[in-house]
């Protein structure tokens, strides 16, 4: 009996594996035909490359320079700030730390959010408690809460990552949970419940693969929101004072009054933030459209 169940489970898995590349291929084919999606992907890849090879592009901006508040030129592509530092170098290194913070915060938020979401969907009693908690978190103004915590603990890279993660997971959980709830009600999950006594196995083998696309979208959106929140905190002076971030460039431009005369000190970090967030949003929209057979037109 056991062997029979195991063998049917085996064939089901095999069919699933055979299906998956086909579905992935259809999604990719549809995605490729969307110019905005491709553009977004290229833009994101470019920003990641900039973050990775930052030391090759510019030397770390520190100290004081003699050329103060110079407009963009061949020597300083993005001009210089009020202390004569190269804005291009600041933006390049800012890409590095902004992406690092976003990646760290997103990884944490996704792990917590997805765990809470699938457990809520699978175990009704968890849903009772966590559902209320998530709702409560989502109805509070997040930025003032983050400000309070960051000011209290003191600004550092770890603080920012932890604060962002701690206040981002409820949104992840809300989105993933609603999808997971729909999956849990499907007949094949009931069948799996009969076949095995291990909820962990069902969650790992059936629930997680089924919600994987929602998680993927959630990763991108959480990361882009984390970039905005981190920049917001840095703009209020709550960023890590020891590393360059896009928010810190804006903060210093405002503090020193440089923003009133030197448009380049604020334009370029602003464009960097905009490029990253727009690319992330467009990528998730294009992916969703490509994945959905109704919008795919194939």
């Amino acid at each position, binding site marked *: 009996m056991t062997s029979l169940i195991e063998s049917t489970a085996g064939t089901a898995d095999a069919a699933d594996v055979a299906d998956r590349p086909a579905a992935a291929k259809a999604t990719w084919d549809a995605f490729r035909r969307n110019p905005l999606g491709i553009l977004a992907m290229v833009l994101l890849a470019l920003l990641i490359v900039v973050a990775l090879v930052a030391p090759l592009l510019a030397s770390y901006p520190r100290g004081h320079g003699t050329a103060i508040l110079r407009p963009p030129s061949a020597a300083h592509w993005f001009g210089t700030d009020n202390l004569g530092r190269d804005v291009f170098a600041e933006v390049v290194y800012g890409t590095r730390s902004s992406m690092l913070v976003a990646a760290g915060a997103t990884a944490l938020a996704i792990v917590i959010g997805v765990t809470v979401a699938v457990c809520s969907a699978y175990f009704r009693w968890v849903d009772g408690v966590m559902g209320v908690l998530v709702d409560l978190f989502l109805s509070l103004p997040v930025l*003032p809460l983050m400000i309070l915590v960051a000011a209290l603990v003191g600004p550092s890279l770890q603080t920012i990552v932890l604060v962002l993660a701690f206040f981002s997971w409820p949104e992840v959980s809300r989105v993933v949970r609603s999808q997971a709830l729909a999956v849990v009600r499907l007949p094949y999950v009931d069948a799996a419940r009969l076949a095995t006594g291990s909820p962990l196995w069902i969650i790992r083998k059936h629930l997680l693969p089924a919600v994987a696309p929602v998680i993927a979208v959630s990763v991108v959106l959480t990361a882009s929101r984390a970039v905005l929140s981190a920049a917001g905190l840095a*703009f209020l002076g709550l960023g890590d004072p020891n590393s360059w971030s896009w928010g810190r460039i804006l903060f210093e431009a405002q503090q020193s009054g440089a923003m009133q005369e030197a448009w380049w000190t604020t334009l370029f970090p602003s464009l960097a933030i905009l490029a990253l967030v727009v690319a992330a949003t467009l990528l998730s929209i294009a992916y969703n459209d490509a994945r959905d057979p109704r919008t795919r037109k194939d």
Partner: protein
Amino acid sequence: MPPLARFALRRVLRGVVTIWFAVTVTFLMLRLLPGDPALAVANPNMTRETRQALLHQYGLDQSLAVQYGKYLWQLLHGNLGVSFSQSVPVTTALMDRLPWTLLLTLSALVVTIVIGVPLGVLAASRRGFWDRAVQLSGVVGQSLFVPSIGIFLLYLLGLKLRWFPIGGAYTENTYGIAWYGSVLRHLVLPCLSLVLVQLGSYVLTLRSTLIDALGEDYCTLARANGLGERKVLWKHALRNALLPTTTLVGLQLGFVVGGAVLTETIYAYPGIGRGIYEAVTQLDFPVLQGAFVLLSATVIVANLLTDLAYGLLDPRVRTA
């Protein structure tokens, strides 16, 4: 009890619980996070003796449960502590600022709706170029960083073109009509910044709900009755599509408050947000805590009102 009353009661109860949650979260954070609890009530530059005296005075040497009870009791009396940087009660300091934040966010909301509804209708009814254009600008709008757009408007319309004042909320020494005029002119740039960052999500939501509504049976029936497409759109579909958009207004409030904090910081607008910024630079924790509690309460009450309005408009919600 009639269903509407039961719905209202349940909703009010939930609001009360949410406020309690916000208050408790702040309490726990200030007490349990690493950091000196004395900092939460006093100037960071104090002597050891002052610190001990303060801990005792504020009951910070008592057990957590006792502290919590006292904290709730004081809050019920509207006591949020004393701001050390201004030596005035936090409640007074913040209440002076609250009207400005309300003026800013509410005016931004009105302008967003006035611009957003026609844009959403345009995108939903003319598929093709206009639809794509509105959608793309919606996505870009959603992705704007508030300080970026604020600084841009300040630079262009305030400093270069000199159309609008770049900071503050009114001109000193003006009275009567002139004062109201100056308030209005000072409001333009911060308000416009907030509108630009929140417009995108409203338009996108309205667009998709409108498209769904236009495919519903009642719209088909209205068309079959010989009603023009324009009438179907404005009289039938829009009315129903506005409901989910109303929910969005409530859900977005938390983000709008965050945007207001950043906007007020840029324009030195004397609202709660600027107060938060100033409190951060002086590590004035009573003000930071009070501002969070007050903003949460405002958001929760506004959400409650939206939900009650929704319940009045749509009988289906009451039973849900």
